[in-house]
């Protein structure tokens, strides 16, 4: 009989949560407490209440020790719900199904099962869970808030556990909004008294109660065991043992020796066992075994649960197991392996078998232990339980010292381990395993091992290990020496992918070499990796057509292999190319196709990319609110998927939006400052732009002066180069920096027909021609400025880029003010140019008002107000005013404009009179200010 007292507050809390879950507000409650704190008893009480309320309840327990298979608690739960197929066991299927996909399916099953009356899941002994099970719990937790599902996770805290991993992994769950933690402390004295009365059937003597209270510190199991000990021994004269394990041990002393011996055998099998298995292990008949176990059942040391038996508390099993000497343990594990094998009707429980074989490996069956452990690893991997597979590979590696030829298998096992670690997201661990494997390969001159070690980690282009992978690739190529084309192609590709984007590329076309080699082998993985590498080489903005072609090839490869991820990359590359080319119709078509593939993949990384792209399109069109919402959504998806770049891309969005609609620039400035302090030096121009956008001109200018001498160091083939160039163009104009402007103009000119948009999932800064136009205006290359700005206007209209159309119109108005069209001064042409400037200004104002762009609106209004003064000067006076602003004397002006000094003097006098200034400094200040505002 189970005794449950106290915990009224916790029980009431959980009862409320059951009711909330049934109404559609699910939650995860993590109940922690030391061994014997009554976690399971509490959960049983909740289960009774939930059933009474009409909810369905399902129990999944994690098994102690290393013999448990992956996802064990979930497999139990899904089996109970009639959905055991939700977790795949077929390795072939695992190749095409992603873990996110798999987890989402399980979440779907649970939500459906909860839909009618609510569902309460109990996950017992989570401190023994495999990490993959906890990752699945994370996925379930993320979907709880609007479900009718209550998950109660029980785990032991406080004890020194052999594996800290699960408890560590649980920590991230406590940060989820839907998670609550309940900590079970000791029972109060009154509760201890109540419990004692239940157990003894009478009110206990005060002295006994006090002693039990002091010793057990409110731990219910400890209290129970002490009281049972008293019941058995009749008094406390024996002296009370310290610690709950000792109490458990002492109570076992009361059992017959033969029973205790059998229980020790049972402890080798685990917490759950059958009479048949223990009998087989102990060499007893089933009948004799069950007879011998009767005293243990009577003493409630074990319980019968249908056909199987179970230690009432795991501590009992631990105490019994610890009593076995090492040699006896090994021998019993070897026998247990035989029992497990012989008693499995259909599928052998490979994890349990591997565990028993490993424990008995020193007795001489290490070879078999290794084989079965590898089989357990393969199975876990097929279930996408990468952490569990990694655990099995580590266990396999430990076995190698027992084998005469063990060292030879080490590199291969290390590489398998690295692959599982990498797929579980443990990049550093994976790289460590790769390095050890490579060391071994190097020592034996096996290029294949070094090559494999260099290509386990994928897509690592901006990580602390990138440079080290790059170096390993070079080494692998030397060792391979053309002996293995598939590996060579992969290593070449990896070499390109891991090259430092901020370093000048020494060897051109390595990606092409990789592609040629990969295409010739026909190996799909090598081909795709080589395509990625080639794409990496072509991101400089000048090879857009080739990028389109590579994207198409990746999509074709996806069709050939059924690998949706290749298609997703192919569409991404094509989207990037169309984004950079400013091809709106093609962009929309590609985005639609990409959406279809993303829906098939259902992976957070791809949802993030798709949502970010949609946000970038919304932002380009000036739908700021929608763009902001989508960018937030993308951030949430990216973070949920563990994508490191999500926060950075979100900052880029915020920065773009802030500069356009003025929202949150203070926070953006702080974040950008934080980024550039540790980022590449030249990223500081981004910070300068934000400062300028906030009106902190002096700070921005100081920063600009510090970075301009280094601008040429920014590598031209880095994808961010055009973005940086466009930012620099704005800063040149803001700070009247003619010298830098000339260099930036020349550098940007080859990209005149492109957009400032390296990737479609990040915001566009509009057409390059806009920035060329701004620079040409600053440099007084009027004709070129006009051509660039008209091209920019056409491009913005084709892309439906409202905000950039407004910026372009403002620049056109500014240009036409500064330099009316040829022939200005004669009434007709001058009036025409002026009308055109007004038209552009009006257009800019209209868009700025409609979309809500305060800073653009202010600039346009300033320009609008400035037109009064500007209009009074003749074109010749404009020219003179410009030279006055440059600080030229009348003589210098006369020389420059090929006129008499007296004429120059007259012009200056007229200008002063017309503008109402009394000094040349006033004219200079007015002219300079007008250039900035138009």
């Amino acid at each position, binding site marked *: 009989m189970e005794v449950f007292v106290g915990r009224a507050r916790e029980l009431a809390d959980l009862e409320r949560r059951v009711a909330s879950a049934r109404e559609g507000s699910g939650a995860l409650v993590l109940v922690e407490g030391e061994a014997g704190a009554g976690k399971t008893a509490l959960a049983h009480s909740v289960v009774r209440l939930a059933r009474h309320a009409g909810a369905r309840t399902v129990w999944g327990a994690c098994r102690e020790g290393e013999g448990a298979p992956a996802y064990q608690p979930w497999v139990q739960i899904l089996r109970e719900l009639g959905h055991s197929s939700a977790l795949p066991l077929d390795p072939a299927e695992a190749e095409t199904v992603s873990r996110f996909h798999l987890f989402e399916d399980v979440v779907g099953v649970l939500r459906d099962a909860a839909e009618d009356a609510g569902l309460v899941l109990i996950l017992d002994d989570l401190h023994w869970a495999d990490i993959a099970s906890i990752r699945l719990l994370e996925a379930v937790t993320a979907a709880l808030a609007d479900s009718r599902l209550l998950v109660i996770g029980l785990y032991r805290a406080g004890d020194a556990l052999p594996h800290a991993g699960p408890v560590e992994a649980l920590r991230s769950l406590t940060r989820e909004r839907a998670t609550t933690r309940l900590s079970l402390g000791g029972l109060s004295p009154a509760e201890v008294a109540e419990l004692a009365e239940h157990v003894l059937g009478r009110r206990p003597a005060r002295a006994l109660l006090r002693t039990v209270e002091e010793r057990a510190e409110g731990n219910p199991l400890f209290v129970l065991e002490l009281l049972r000990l008293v019941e058995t021994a009749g008094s406390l004269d024996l002296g009370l043992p310290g610690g709950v394990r000792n109490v458990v041990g002492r109570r076992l002393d009361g059992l017959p020796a033969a029973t205790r011996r059998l229980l020790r055998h049972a402890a080798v099998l685990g917490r759950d066992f059958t009479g048949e298995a223990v009998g087989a292990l102990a060499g007893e008949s089933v009948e004799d075994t069950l007879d011998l176990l009767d005293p243990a059942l009577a003493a409630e040391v074990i319980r019968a649960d249908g056909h199987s038996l179970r230690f009432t508390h795991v501590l009992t099993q631990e105490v019994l197991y610890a009593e076995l000497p090492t040699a006896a343990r090994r021998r019993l594990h070897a026998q247990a392996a035989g029992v497990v094998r012989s008693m499995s009707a259909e599928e052998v429980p490979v994890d349990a078998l591997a565990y028993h074989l490993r424990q008995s490996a020193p007795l001489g069956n290490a070879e078999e232990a290794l084989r079965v452990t590898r089989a357990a690893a393969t199975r876990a991997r097929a279930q996408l339980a990468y952490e569990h597979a990694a655990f099995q590979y580590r266990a396999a590696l430990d076995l190698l010292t027992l084998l005469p030829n063990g060292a030879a298998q080490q590199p291969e096992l290390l590489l398998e381990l690295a692959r599982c670690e990498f797929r579980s997201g443990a990049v550093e661990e994976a790289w460590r395993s790769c390095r050890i494997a490579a060391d071994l390969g190097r020592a034996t001159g096996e290029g294949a091992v070094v090559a494999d070690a260099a290509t386990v980690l994928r897509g690592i282009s901006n990580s602390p290990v990138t440079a080290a992978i790059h170096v390993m690739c070079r080494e692998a190529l030397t060792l391979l020496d053309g002996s293995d084309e598939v590996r060579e192609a992969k290593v070449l590709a990896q070499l390109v992918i891991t090259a430092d984007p901020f370093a000048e590329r020494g060897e051109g*076309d390595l990606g*092409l070499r990789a*592609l*040629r080699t*990969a*295409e010739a082998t026909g190996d799909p993985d090598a081909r795709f990796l080589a395509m990625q590498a080639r794409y990496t080489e072509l991101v400089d903005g000048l090879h857009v*057509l080739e990028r*389109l072609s590579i994207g*198409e*090839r990746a999509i074709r490869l996806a069709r050939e292999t059924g690998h949706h991820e290749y298609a997703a990359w192919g569409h991404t590359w094509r989207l990037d190319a169309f984004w950079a080319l400013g091809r709106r119709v093609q962009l929309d078509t590609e985005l639609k196709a990409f959406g279809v593939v993303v829906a098939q993949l259902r992976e957070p990384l791809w949802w993030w990319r798709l949502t970010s792209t949609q946000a970038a399109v919304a932002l380009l069109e000036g739908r700021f609110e929608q763009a902001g919402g989508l960018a937030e959504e993308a951030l949430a998806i990216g973070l949920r998927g563990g994508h490191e770049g999500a926060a950075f891309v979100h900052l880029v969005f915020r920065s773009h939006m802030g500069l356009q609609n003025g929202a949150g620039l203070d926070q953006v400035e702080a974040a950008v400052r934080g980024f550039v302090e540790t980022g590449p030096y030249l990223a500081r121009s981004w910070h300068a732009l934000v400062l300028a956008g906030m009106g902190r001109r002096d700070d921005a200018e100081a920063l600009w002066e510090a970075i301009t001498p280094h601008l040429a160091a920014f590598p031209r083939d880095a994808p961010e180069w055009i973005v940086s160039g466009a930012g620099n163009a704005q800063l040149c104009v803001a700070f009247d920096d003619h010298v830098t402007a000339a260099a930036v103009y020349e550098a940007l000119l080859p990209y005149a027909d492109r957009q400032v948009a390296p990737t479609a999932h990040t915001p566009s800064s509009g057409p390059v021609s806009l920035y060329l136009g701004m620079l040409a205006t600053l440099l007084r290359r009027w004709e070129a400025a006009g051509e660039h700005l008209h091209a920019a206007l056409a491009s913005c209209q084709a892309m439906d880029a409202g905000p950039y159309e407004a910026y372009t119109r403002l620049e056109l108005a500014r240009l036409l003010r500064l330099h009316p069209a040829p022939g200005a001064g004669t009434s007709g042409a001058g009036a025409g140019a002026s009308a055109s400037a007004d038209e552009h200004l009006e257009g800019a104002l209209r868009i700025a008002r409609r979309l809500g762009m305060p800073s653009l609106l202010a600039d346009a209004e300033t320009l609008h107000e400035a037109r009064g003064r500007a209009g009074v000067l003749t074109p010749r006076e404009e020219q003179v005013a410009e030279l006055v602003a440059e600080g030229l004397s009348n003589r210098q002006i006369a020389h420059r404009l090929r006129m008499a000094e007296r004429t120059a003097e007259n012009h200056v006098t007229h200008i002063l009179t017309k503008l109402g200034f009394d000094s040349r400094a006033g004219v200079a200040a007015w002219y300079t200010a007008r250039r900035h505002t138009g």
Partner: protein
Amino acid sequence: MHAVIGIWTVDPAWHDEQHRLLREEIIPLVTRQPGFLTGYWMHDPESGRSHTTAVFDDLESADRFKALVESGTRQAARVGVVSTVLTTVDVVADVVHPDSPTR
């Protein structure tokens, strides 16, 4: 009319084999394609790249030919030829000199 345009990187180490294949296999194969009108195989000695143009009567024939070329990437790579751009385009005008022997 529609054309399939290709830009190819070519490894000169395979020069003889490339030319043999072009003469003996590729040109006869292209010539047999439905809707095929005219084709050019060109080489830019400066960049080391080859450019190809095959003109077809209609878009369907051009696309079918493009798919055929795409299916041969492995064979091409084996003789050092890799496509960098392969695309179908509209032919908006064409002219042949009246005295041209190809007229």
